[in-house]
Structures are given as structure tokens and as C-alpha cells.
């Protein structure tokens, strides 16, 4: 990892007062953004300014940070930027906004008496499967939050932490919905029942298997790309958008679509983040080719199993009014292919 850019010289050459801005920030655009100013180099690195090496190491020889924490390599990890520049303040603004919108939907559903209009078959479906996505989000959360520390730049660590945070928010939103519906629709939305189904219902087991497998990922780069390019577009898209959002809208459900729309808005941020990261690695001038081979291997290792999980969910779709599994499957597969093409990556391994 040679060639870390000497901070700020570009900006110093322009006539503004150099002592009034952070010269270590190498802006991606013409001017440093507030996200760049508040994030960059808050994580130190021997490839940036820690010229004396790491002062504290693991007993097995790993330094404070370890280049071998991912199989990927790039010339300059610190050059990565989140395209949407999420930092703490907009994160709390957006997260609080999500919760406000959901609360508003619940409130108006109650005050306007909308829950009485919901298709009874959809209510039955929600009793059965409405909360199960919470376990998927929680499972992703539990590995993302563990892998964030090892990432080799602050922009990456923060991105993974905030991804975990949105996953936890989404998981909890489904659980709280179950709680609310329990009160309004006369029971049957217990979390225990949902958990039993998550643990035992055959249609969900391939999903559970792939989510549990995420917990075996030791490489933070693999985590970003598997979640961003495989799990979210295929499984996340299938259950959240194709099943819960479309089905909920058709069934006149006033709450579930509000939850999913907010999750999808957060999902758009992660989509852009993962896509930018994939390109960043694949287009690296020195290591791009090796990275592409590694990423292709990850796609091959994860896509078939994820597609099996998608296929296994057909009976769940069958139990929900107004949704079409084949159309849904096609939509998510097409979506993932478009994403991979945008990332400049090869065809995913076809499902058997």
C-alpha cells in the first residue's frame, strides 16, 4: 500500500488561509465536505501518519490494525468515500425521521380506523410471517457490528457501524409493529411465535442457514460485499420490497409499507455504499484484477445458497394475498444483475 497521498497540498496551493482548514483531508471533490473533515484520519494508520508503526499489538503479532484483515488490497484505503457521506448528525436525523414516520403511520391508522380495512388474509399472513424479517436484520447486525473494527479506514469502519445500526433499527421496527398489531387486532402477533417459526418452519430454514453463515465471515471486505451485492439485493429485496411492501400496499395495510419504505431508503444508502466499495476495489490500479477475482469467488460462494433461500420462500409468498413469487424472484435477480454490472463485476453463478 504505497502512495498514500500527502495531505492537503492541493488545497494549500489555492489562495485560502491554509491554517483555517484541515490540511490532512484530501477532498474528493473541489472542496472538503463536512463529512470528510469530521471523519478522515480519525482512525490512524501506519500507511498515513503513524510512521513509527503501531504502538500496541496483539500477542499473535497483529498490529493495532492489520493489513491481512481482508483479502482485498488497494493502493490507498483512506481514499474510500461513502457516496452519500453519512456521518453521525445526518444518521440521527434520518434514523429519527424513520421512526417518526412509522409512529405517524401507526397513529393515523388508529385515529382514522384504517386497520379495519386491511384484507383479513393479509392479517393472517402478518400473524404468521410479518415479524420474521426482524431475525434476518438482527442476524446481519450481529456480524456487521463485530467486523466493523477491523476495517482499514475510518470511512469504512463508520459505514459498517452505521449499516449495523440501520439493521438493528429495522429489526426492532418489525418487532414493535407486532406489538402494536397485537393490541389492535386482538392477539396472535407474539414474538415467541415468530421466533418458533424462524427456528422451525422449513420455508425459512434456508434463509436462516445463510444468515447464520454470515456469522462465519472473518473478512470485513467480504462482509460489505456479500451483504451489499448478494444478501440485500436478493433476500432483502425479496422479503422487504416484493413481499411486505407490495403485498402490504395491495392489502391496504397502513403500517407495514411505512416500515418497509423507511428500511428501503436506508437500503438505498447501503446499496450505494457497497457499490462504491466494489468499484473502489475492482478499479484499483494495482490490485484491481486480484480484487475482482477474489470478489468473483465470494459471489460464487454466496449467490447459489442465497438463491436457494429465495426459492425456499415460495410457500411464504403463497400464504400472502396479492403477491406473485415468480415475478418477485425475477425482479430481485434482475436487480442484482444490474447492480453487479454497475460494479463492473461478472455474471453471478446461475442458480441450479
Amino acid at each position: 500500500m504505497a502512495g498514500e497521498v500527502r495531505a492537503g497540498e492541493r488545497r494549500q496551493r489555492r489562495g485560502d488561509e491554509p491554517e483555517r482548514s484541515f490540511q490532512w483531508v484530501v477532498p474528493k471533490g473541489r472542496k472538503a465536505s463536512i463529512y470528510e473533515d469530521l471523519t478522515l484520519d480519525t482512525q490512524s494508520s501506519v500507511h498515513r501518519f503513524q510512521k513509527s508503526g503501531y504502538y500496541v499489538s496483539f500477542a499473535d503479532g497483529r498490529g493495532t490494525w492489520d493489513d491481512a484483515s481482508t483479502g482485498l488490497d488497494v493502493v490507498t484505503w483512506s481514499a474510500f468515500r461513502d457516496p452519500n457521506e453519512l456521518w453521525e448528525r445526518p444518521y440521527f436525523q434520518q434514523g429519527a425521521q424513520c421512526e417518526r414516520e412509522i409512529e405517524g403511520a401507526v397513529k393515523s391508522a388508529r385515529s382514522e380506523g384504517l386497520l379495519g380495512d386491511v384484507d383479513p388474509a393479509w392479517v393472517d399472513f402478518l400473524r404468521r410471517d410479518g415479524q420474521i424479517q426482524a431475525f434476518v436484520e438482527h442476524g446481519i447486525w450481529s456480524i456487521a457490528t463485530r467486523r466493523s473494527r477491523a476495517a482499514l479506514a475510518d470511512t469504512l469502519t463508520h459505514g459498517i457501524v452505521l449499516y449495523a445500526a440501520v439493521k438493528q433499527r429495522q429489526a426492532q421496527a418489525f418487532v414493535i409493529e407486532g406489538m402494536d398489531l397485537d393490541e389492535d387486532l386482538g392477539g396472535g402477533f407474539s414474538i415467541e411465535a415468530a421466533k418458533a417459526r424462524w427456528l422451525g418452519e422449513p420455508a425459512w430454514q434456508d434463509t436462516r442457514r445463510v444468515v447464520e453463515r454470515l456469522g462465519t465471515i472473518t473478512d470485513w471486505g467480504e462482509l460489505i460485499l456479500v451483504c451489499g451485492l448478494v444478501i440485500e439485493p436478493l433476500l432483502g429485496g425479496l422479503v422487504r420490497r416484493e413481499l411486505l411492501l407490495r403485498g402490504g400496499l395491495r392489502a391496504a395495510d397502513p403500517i407495514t409499507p411505512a416500515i418497509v419504505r423507511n428500511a428501503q431508503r436506508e437500503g438505498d444508502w447501503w446499496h450505494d455504499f457497497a457499490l462504491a466499495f466494489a468499484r473502489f476495489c475492482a478499479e484499483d490500479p494495482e490490485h484491481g484484477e486480484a480484487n475482482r477475482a477474489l470478489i468473483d469467488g465470494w459471489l460464487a460462494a454466496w449467490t447459489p445458497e442465497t438463491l436457494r433461500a429465495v426459492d425456499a420462500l415460495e410457500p411464504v409468498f403463497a400464504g400472502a394475498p396479492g403477491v406473485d413469487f415468480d415475478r418477485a424472484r425475477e425482479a430481485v435477480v434482475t436487480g442484482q444483475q444490474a447492480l453487479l454490472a454497475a460494479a463492473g463485476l461478472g455474471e453471478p453463478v446461475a442458480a441450479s
Partner: protein
Amino acid sequence: MATTPTRRRSVTKTHERIAQLGWNRDYHQPVPIYDTRYVFPEKAKDPMKQVMREYLPMQLEKDERVYGGFDAALRAGMPTKADERWLQVMKPLVLILVYAEGAAGRCMSVVMDVVPNEELLNGYHVQFVDEVRHIGMQMNLARWYTKHTPDPAGWHRGQEYLPENLFTRAGINLFSHAFVGDPIAAGFTMMTVIETAFTNVAFVALPDVATRNGDFIQATTYSSVQSDEARHISNGYATMLTVLQKEENIPLIQHDLQQAWWITHAFVDPFVGTIMEYFSTDRSDTENYVTKWDRWIRDDWYRSYVEQLGTMGVDIPPDMFVRARERLVAGLHHKTAPLAFSTWPLQFWKFDPLTEKDFDWFEAQYPGWYDEYGATWEAYAALADPDEGAILLAGFMEGAPPFCWTCMLACVIDEDMCHRTCCDKEGVERTRFYCSPECRWLDETNPGRYTGDRNFFDKHHGKSLSEVILELGLLRADGKTLIGQPHLKKDRMWTIDHIRACDFQIHSPNIVQARELGLPDGNWHSDEDPFGTVQGDGNGFQPVTLYGGGAGQNGDGRVRVEDMARAAVGDTPWVKL
């Protein structure tokens, strides 16, 4: 249909439901990337949980208040009203605290990787999100100071200076303990010691000093940070109560808590004590650092927390806490401060000579202070003008104490200083100095932990002062005036030419001292190595000193967790001092 659309959900019931989200894995067990010596009980202690629906609006509201405060501070003309002496020292302080926040967040990640108890995970995760918030707020504070305060030089390249600066590198060293090594030991360092004991000093007592010096935006920012600490302290306590359930953990807790305590004391007390007392112009405070320490650390933490652990079977001898206080009383920060001030040409902030008013305050607070330190401070003030043509550091370097291998600060308490010898990667014996037997114990019992080109003066040994200033990039935008200055005046600033006119050669006190004592080489720097170290690059370092010569117990030169555990509880028990 609902009759009361605004009715509130039961918090307890919401928590109960959220707690159901974890499950026992059947298809794949999680694979950790960090190792711990601790074992875990089936059932953990349940700490405070956060439901995102309550957490997000609560944090947003706090954020709005802080960020709104920056505009208000600008309208109130705070940048020019706040005391300049104080504003200068915010440069190292805020940036090192930002690193500490990053360490606290990453600490959560390593702890979550090894703690199997779902009940604990929610709290850890929310803490990581809090710590991302703290980084944002404090970098915003740094950015605001940079844009608005009278003399921002030093802020503008602060993150570049931080890891290589004589003092802040020691802060990087300390806070890295919170996310490197055994995750539970790291967790104790952050949650049980740094957050439970010391955030009251850093985020309550320091902001009080800030306010006294007209800097209320620092106080606004840090009070908001502190409002999250109750939850972090609760995470630490829940972690402690959880591992306490297993008897085999108790010797590990005793060992790790003492080590966490010592390394934190070794850096924070001299660093914060110096900032609080030597960078405050306001002298209205009737409490000194030791008084505050007695309240926050001794009474509120040691007596009501650590001693209470005794009732749960954790037997920690009081020696380390007593010793830390004795060192403070013996002048740990009073002896560190003159040394810090004398290194002003190497710093990225300015220093203000003490005045009569300061002398009076110190003498009232610490009777006998003037007799002991007064002459040094008079000399400092006398040499502040470049026309004097003399640099205090030149004289200081002659008799300067060595720097400690473990905590990386100067060994200022003569009676405590000690050393040992060990081999570098070529098998050549060299001398390591320590500020205290406790720091030596930390190094001895944690083979492979302390890496890198650790000693600032070894690294720069033999160079002239002006060369080091240039190498570290410590000049202002005009290309000749130093960022660090020994006074706050706008004129009479030192330039690189002034330095050249009275230049001198840097000598590492460690090298000099080892030579004087007839010990093996005190130098641990090598120009041959990419990171300047004779013991590897800190990124693949092979420990060489364990088990007398270096092969590790498996004979391959690697130290494994089992080796560490043996060193920790078996071969090297608590050392009575």
C-alpha cells in the same frame, strides 16, 4: 378500534420483545477473529437496553443542542473572548480524545466478537453508535476552533502530528489498549477504568475549567458526550458481573483490572493534570487536580466500585491505587509540566509562561511548590523571547529522564524509575526504561504488546533540533515561523532561523542514561526498518523475549493466547512492589 391513538407502549414489554431477537445458531457457529482467556456463563447480567425508537430521537435532540450551540457561541463572540492559553491546549486535547472515542467504539466490536451472551450485545452496539457520535461532535469542535479562534496554526495539520508527537503518541498508546489484545481486558480498560473512573475528570471537571476560561462551547460539547457515559458505565458493570459468575475468571479480572488501571493512570493523570492546572488562566478554582482526583477517582470509583468487587470475590490489593495517588502527591504532573513546556519547539500548540498570579495559586494549592519548581518557571519565562538566543530544552536535555517503554511518558519520579534488558529481533540485548515497576510489570507480562518505534528521542537521536522541526512539519504557512511558541504574543515569535542560531543536537535520554549506567544499548530505533523499529513493524511483529530467548513456547517465535494466559496468571502473578 383504538380509542386512545396516542397511548404509549410499555417500555418493559418492548424490551422483552426486542430481547427475543437473538437465537442459538444451528447451522453455523459464529467465528470470532479475536481470542479471549475468559469463559462465559449461560446467563449474562442484563444491562440497560436501548430501543432505537426512543434512542434515535433522544440523541438527535442532544445533537441539535450541541450543533446549535456552535452558532450561538459564534454570535456571542466566544472565539475572541475565550482565554488563549486554554484554547491552545485544546489542539492536542481534543484530537487525543477523538482517538479515545474511536477506541471506545472499536472496543465494543472486539467485545461483541467474543461475548456469546445476547443480552449484552444490544448495549455494546448502541455504545459504538454513541462513540461515532462523539467523534463527529468533537471533530466538529476541532473544526470550529480551526475556523474561528485567533491562532489556529497546528489544528490545520493536527491529525498528521498526532501519532508522531512526543506526548500525543503516548495517548494513542494508552487508548489502543482498549481495542487490542484480549477483548475482555480491553473492555475493562475502556468501560471499567477509562469510562467509569476517568470520564468524570475528562468530561465534567475539564469542561468546568473550560467554562472558567470563557470556552463554553467545549463545555457544551463534552457535557453532551458525558450524558451517554452512564450507559457505557452500565455496559462495563454488566460485563464485570457476567464474567464474575465464573470462578476461573477471577484471577484474570484481578490481573487485568490492575493493568488497565495502571496504564490509564500513567497517561491520563500527568496529561490531564498538566492541562487542567498549567493551561488555565482563571485561578478561581479552589480545588486542585489531586482534590478532584480524590473525589472522582478515589471516592466515587475506587472506594465505591473496586472495593465493592471484594464482596464478590475479586481481591485486588490496594497498592496500585495508593501508589498512583502517592505519585500525584509527589508531583507527577508538576514534574511533567516543565518538561512539556521546555519541548515547545516540537509541539503544535503554543505555551504561555506562568505569571505571579499562577505562582500564587500553585503555592496556595501545593505548599512548597514555588521552592521546588519556581526557578524553572522563572527561567522558562526569561528565555521566551527569541532575542535571548537560548533554548531551555538544550539545558533540559542534559539531565532529562529517560522515557518509559510502556506508558511512553518521561520517568519523572526518580525512585520509581527502573529498567530491564531484553533482546531485539537480531538477538542483541538492549535496555528498556520504565517510569515505575508497574509499567515494567505490564511489559513483562504482555509479550508482543508494546511495539513500534516507541521512543521519540531514540528516533531523533543525533539530529539537530531544527532538523526535527522541519521533519515533523512544524512550521506555519509562512514557511519560517514555528507553530509551537513559548509565549502567546503576536510579535517576538520564534522562526526556524532563531532556532538555527542556537541549534543543538538531540540526545535520547534513554541512550545517554543506559551508557552512564553501563547498561546495554538504550536505543530501540533503527533506520533500516521501514517503521524505524528494531523489533518489527507493529504489523506482523514477532515477539522475541518470552521464555528467555525468544522462541515462544511452541518454539516458532509466536506468542499465543495460551502463552499470554500463562504469563498472566501462572508464571508471573501479581507483583508485590
